C-alpha cells in the first residue's frame, strides 16, 4: 500500500483532534452532571462526532450553522472554544451566552453558529432564512441546518424546504439519523423515507455513513459546492448513533433499546476508532495519536476548571438583553 502524502494525514489528524475534543468534552459534561456540578441536563453528542466534524470541516468559518438540543458537537466542530462552552453549561458569565442560554442555546456569531435550539426542528426556518439572506446579500456563504430524525415529524421543515427549493437557496439540511427520538424508535414515528421526502420537495439528497468522517466530509464538500454555485438546497442523510442516553439522566435504557445494540455500535461503529484505525493503517504512529489525545484531554480539563471557577453573571443581568 502506498504511503499517504503527509499533508493528508495531517489534515485527518486535525479532524481526529476535533472529534476527540467533542468526545472528551461530552465525557467531562457527563462527569459534571454526575458530580452534581452542572445545573439542568445535557444531551451528549458522543457517537455522532463524525457528522458534525465531517460537515463543519467542509465549511468556512463564516458559513452558518444552526444546531439542536444535542448541540455541543456542532458548536465545537464549528470552532467554539471549550472553556467558554463549559462556562455556558455551568451558567457562568464567561459562557458564550453569558450563562443565559445554557447547554441547549449556545450561539457564537464569530464562528457562524446561529445557535442551538431546544425546539425540535425549530431552527429549520432560521437556517433557511439565513440562506435567503445569503442569496440576497450575495455573500457566497452556505447555511447548514443540523437536526435529528425526530425533527422529521415537524411540519415546519417541509414548509421551509419547499421554499428553499423554489428559491434555490444555499442551505444544506443535515439529518442526524440516530434511530431514536428520545425513547422511541424511528420506525414508530416515521413512515416512508427521507430521500423520497426530499425529492418530493425538489431537494437534492444524499445518504452517507455518518460514522465515517471522510465520507461525511466528501459528501458535504459536494453539497457545499453545489450550494455556492447557486444550484440550491440539499439534504444530507447521515446514519449515526448516540452512545449515551437521550440526556445525561437517561441511564436505564433497556426498555427502548438493547444493551447489545449499544455495545455493537460502540465496538464496531465508533467514528473515533474508525478514523484512528485508518490513521494507523496510514502510518501515523500510535504515539502521535496518544499525544494528541493527551493534549486535548488536558485542555478539556483546564477548561472545566476554568468554568468551575468562573463567576456567575451579576443577578442584575437578568433584565438585560431583553431588547437590543
Amino acid at each position: 500500500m502506498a504511503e499517504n502524502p503527509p499533508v493528508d494525514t495531517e489534515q485527518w489528524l486535525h479532524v481526529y483532534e476535533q472529534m476527540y475534543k467533542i468526545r472528551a468534552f461530552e465525557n467531562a459534561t457527563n462527569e459534571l452532571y454526575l458530580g452534581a456540578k452542572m445545573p439542568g441536563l445535557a444531551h451528549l453528542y458522543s457517537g455522532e462526532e463524525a457528522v458534525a466534524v465531517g460537515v463543519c470541516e467542509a465549511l468556512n468559518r463564516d458559513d452558518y450553522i444552526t444546531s439542536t438540543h444535542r448541540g455541543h458537537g456542532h458548536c465545537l466542530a464549528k470552532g467554539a472554544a471549550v472553556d467558554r462552552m463549559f462556562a455556558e453549561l455551568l451558567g457562568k458569565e464567561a459562557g458564550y451566552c453569558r450563562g443565559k442560554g445554557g447547554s441547549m442555546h449556545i450561539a457564537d456569531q464569530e464562528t457562524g453558529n446561529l445557535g442551538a435550539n431546544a425546539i425540535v426542528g425549530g431552527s429549520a426556518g432560521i437556517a433557511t432564512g439565513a440562506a435567503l439572506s445569503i442569496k440576497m446579500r450575495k455573500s457566497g456563504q452556505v447555511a447548514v441546518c443540523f437536526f435529528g430524525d425526530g425533527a422529521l415529524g415537524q411540519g415546519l421543515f417541509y414548509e421551509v424546504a419547499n421554499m428553499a427549493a423554489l428559491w434555490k437557496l444555499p442551505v444544506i439540511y443535515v439529518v442526524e439519523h440516530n434511530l431514536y427520538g428520545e425513547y422511541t424508535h424511528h420506525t414508530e414515528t416515521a413512515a416512508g423515507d427521507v430521500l423520497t421526502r426530499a425529492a418530493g420537495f425538489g431537494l437534492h439528497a444524499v445518504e452517507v455513513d455518518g460514522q465515517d468522517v471522510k465520507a461525511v466530509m466528501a459528501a458535504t464538500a459536494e453539497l457545499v459546492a453545489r450550494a455556492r454555485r447557486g444550484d440550491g438546497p440539499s439534504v444530507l442523510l447521515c446514519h449515526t448513533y448516540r452512545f449515551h442516553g437521550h440526556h445525561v439522566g437517561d441511564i436505564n435504557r433497556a426498555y427502548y433499546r438493547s444493551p447489545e445494540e449499544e455495545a455493537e455500535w460502540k465496538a464496531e461503529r465508533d467514528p473515533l476508532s474508525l478514523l484512528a484505525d485508518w490513521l494507523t493503517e496510514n502510518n501515523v504512529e500510535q504515539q502521535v495519536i496518544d499525544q494528541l489525545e493527551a493534549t486535548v484531554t488536558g485542555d478539556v480539563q483546564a477548561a472545566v476548571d476554568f468554568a468551575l471557577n468562573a463567576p456567575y453573571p451579576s443577578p442584575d443581568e437578568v433584565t438585560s438583553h431583553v431588547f437590543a
Partner: protein
Amino acid sequence: MSSPNPTISHSVAAPGVRQLTFGQAINEAIAEEMRRDPLIFVVGEDVAEAGTPFKVLLGLVDEFGPERIIDSPISEAGIAGIGVGAAMTGMRPIVDIMFGDFTTLVMDQMVNQAAKIHYMSGGKLKVPMVLRTTMGASRRSAAQHSQSLHAWLSHVPGLKVAIPATPYDAKGLMKAAIRDENPVVIYEDKLSYPIKGPVPEEDYIIPLGVAEVKRTGEDITLVATSSMVYVALSAAEKLAEIGISAEVVDPRTTAPLDAETLIASAKKTSRVIVIDEGYQEYGVTGEMASVIADGAFYWLDAPVKRMGAMHVPIPFSPALEDRTIPTAEQVVEMAKMLCGRN
C-alpha cells in the same frame, strides 16, 4: 390585625387520607377514567413505554395497551389536530404536549379548530378532548422549556383551562376535564409532580370554575395559581408570625373563572395580591386583578397588586433564573406594604 387559627382546606391537608404525589394523582385520574370509558385514549410523544419524560403516565400502557396509549411522532400540531378530529367523531382523546412551551405549535388547532367548532356548527358538533401540558420554570431548562403560557388559551372563548395546584385538585380537575363535553386544557406544574398530598381513593370530580379557599384569613387575600399556591401558603405562614392573617384563594381554573369567590375574599380582607407564574404583562394576573378591582372597588383599602414571572425570557443560569419567579419572601414584603407594616 387579627390572626385567627387558619383553616386549611382538605386539598392541602386532610388527616387519615392516602397520600399521593401530584404525578400519581394525574396518573390515577386518567387510569380510572380509562377503565370507565373505552373511548378515552392518550396520544403524545413518549407517552407509552417511557410514560412521558416526567414519568407521569408510567404503567398506563401496560394496562391499556399501545392502542390506547399511543406514542406519536414529534408533531405537536398534528396530534392536536388528530385529537380534535377524533373527539368530533365519538372518541375522547387526551393529547399530551410535553412542555407548555410547545403549545406554540398547537395554537391553530386549539384556537381556530377545537375552540370554535361547537359554536361555528351552531351547536351540532362537539370536541370533548383534553390537552395536558406543563408549565413552570426553575428547572434550569432555559427559555424554551420554562414558560407558563396558560394566559393564551384562557383568552379564547370555547376553551376551558385548569391549573391544579395540589394532588387532590389534580385528580378531581383531570376527571372533570375528561368528562367535559368541551376542549379542556390542563397545565401541570413540572416541579409539582413529586409534591405529596391527600387524594381519596373514591371517585370524585372538582367542577371546572370553582375556586377554593386554601387557607382562611382576615387581613389580606393572596390569589394564587398552580405552584404559586405553595408560595402563597408559605408566605401566609410567615405573615401569621408577624400578626398578618392572609387568606389564600386558588381559582383552580382560569376559564371559567370563579370571580365570585375571588371578589368575596377581597371584600372580606380589603387587600389583594394576585400571584401567577405566567408573565405578568397581558397575563393571568391582569385579568384576575381587574376583575377584583372592579368587583370589590368600594371595599378595597389598597390597590390590587400583581406578581407574575419577571418580563424576561427565562434565563438558564441559576444565578439569574431564581430571580424570575415570585417567592414567598417577595409576597411577604408586598403584603406587609399593603398592610401598612413597612
